């Protein structure tokens, strides 16, 4: 569903990753590993098409990706149900109820998101991924601030998604409890301060 070949990515004018290749077939999960600053987030943002690629090719998934970042994009003054309903309307699905059920958020449905604990907020952020109904999940450290039970719950949700023919690309350091391929991106880190020689000058925008 997603293929990267000889991918190079730059961030703020400095090469971060060079020569990275992987394929993500349907029904599989790919776990990204690497120390802090290795470029996991940068790679995920490039896959989500938020970051332009500096070289190589990245094919597939433009219209199928659900991106989950470090921050959840949760509006504190809206209720849990309103937050999910909004994204369901944006993506044109009716999966808000299913997502709340999957991540055990029903009891919190009418609670303002600003009153949730960090872990509950994270669960709401993950429920948003389910709401999109998209087939490729691109998740950045999805288990931060989750307790063990919630991690297991999330693992089940991902496993169900994979069983239904979806795929997932996840940056995480812990075992999520389902079979997954592992890609250690440490080997693809660019050398120190390789400058980018592309014609793009929009970095100078501000």
């Amino acid at each position, binding site marked *: 569903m997603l293929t990267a070949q000889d991918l190079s990515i730059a*961030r*703020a004018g400095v090469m971060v990753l060079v020569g990275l290749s992987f394929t993500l077939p349907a029904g599989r999960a790919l776990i990204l590993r690497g120390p802090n600053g290795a470029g996991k987030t940068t790679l995920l943002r490039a896959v*989500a*098409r*938020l*970051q*332009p690629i500096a070289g190589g090719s990245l094919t597939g998934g433009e*219209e199928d*990706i*659900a*991106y989950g*970042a*470090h*921050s*959840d*994009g*949760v*509006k*504190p*003054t*809206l209720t849990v149900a*309103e937050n999910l309903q*909004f*994204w369901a*309307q*944006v*993506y*044109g699905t009716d999966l808000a109820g299913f997502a709340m059920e999957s991540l055990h958020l029903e009891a919190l449905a009418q609670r303002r998101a600003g009153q949730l604990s960090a872990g509950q907020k994270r669960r709401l952020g993950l429920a*948003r991924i389910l709401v*999109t109904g998209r087939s490729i999940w691109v998740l950045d450290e999805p288990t931060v601030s989750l307790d063990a039970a919630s991690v297991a719950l999330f693992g089940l949700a991902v496993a169900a998604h994979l069983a239904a023919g979806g795929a997932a690309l996840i940056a995480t350091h812990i075992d999520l409890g389902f079979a997954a391929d592992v890609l250690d991106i440490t080997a693809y880190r660019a050398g120190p301060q390789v400058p980018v020689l592309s014609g793009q000058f*929009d*970095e100078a*925008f*501000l």
Partner: protein
Amino acid sequence: MRALLLRDLRLAFRAGGGFGLSLAFFLMVAVIVPLGVGPAPATLALIAAGVLWVGALLAALLSLDRLFALDFEDGSLDLLATSPLPMGGVVAVKALAHWLTTGLPLVAVSPVLGLLLNLPREGYVWLLVSLAIGTPALSMIGAFGASLTVGLKRGGLLLGLLVLPLYIPTLIFGAEVVKAGAMGAEIGTPLAALAAITAGAWAGLPLAASMAIRANLK
């Protein structure tokens, strides 16, 4: 798109959303000016149009820095950028929500403030018309400025410096419509120019703003 508009309106009306801030600011300006320049009705009548338009300008500016900054800080902007919504549409909808929560209330209360500033009677209808036609341009140009400064620390200050010069044509033609209308003079030309600015801003700036946001998200 409709969902985004409803969400932004809902966020504006909920606690801490800032609805009413701009309106209250506009009221304060109109109340304070007579205290500064003295209550002579003739003087006030002379400056009423200009003061009301400058007040509207500053009131619109007041809430602009939150337009994209809040969505940027909590990660929503990233998620909107990866959603099926076109970014230009997101910008236009957010500018529309900004106008509905700041511009439209200003238009609605402006006759009352015209009374406070002793605006000649013939000017009221033109004050309403010029604000109704001109304030959408303020929201859209402001949204463009906000897209340029999204993600910057203390971007709100820079935003004011960027946007106020761009507001000048709207201010000139808007105030001109009211002044000329109050004197019973020909208002066709400034009114057409004002409408042209608004139409041009809404036609071109959503695309420009969406490119600026994408560049700032990198």
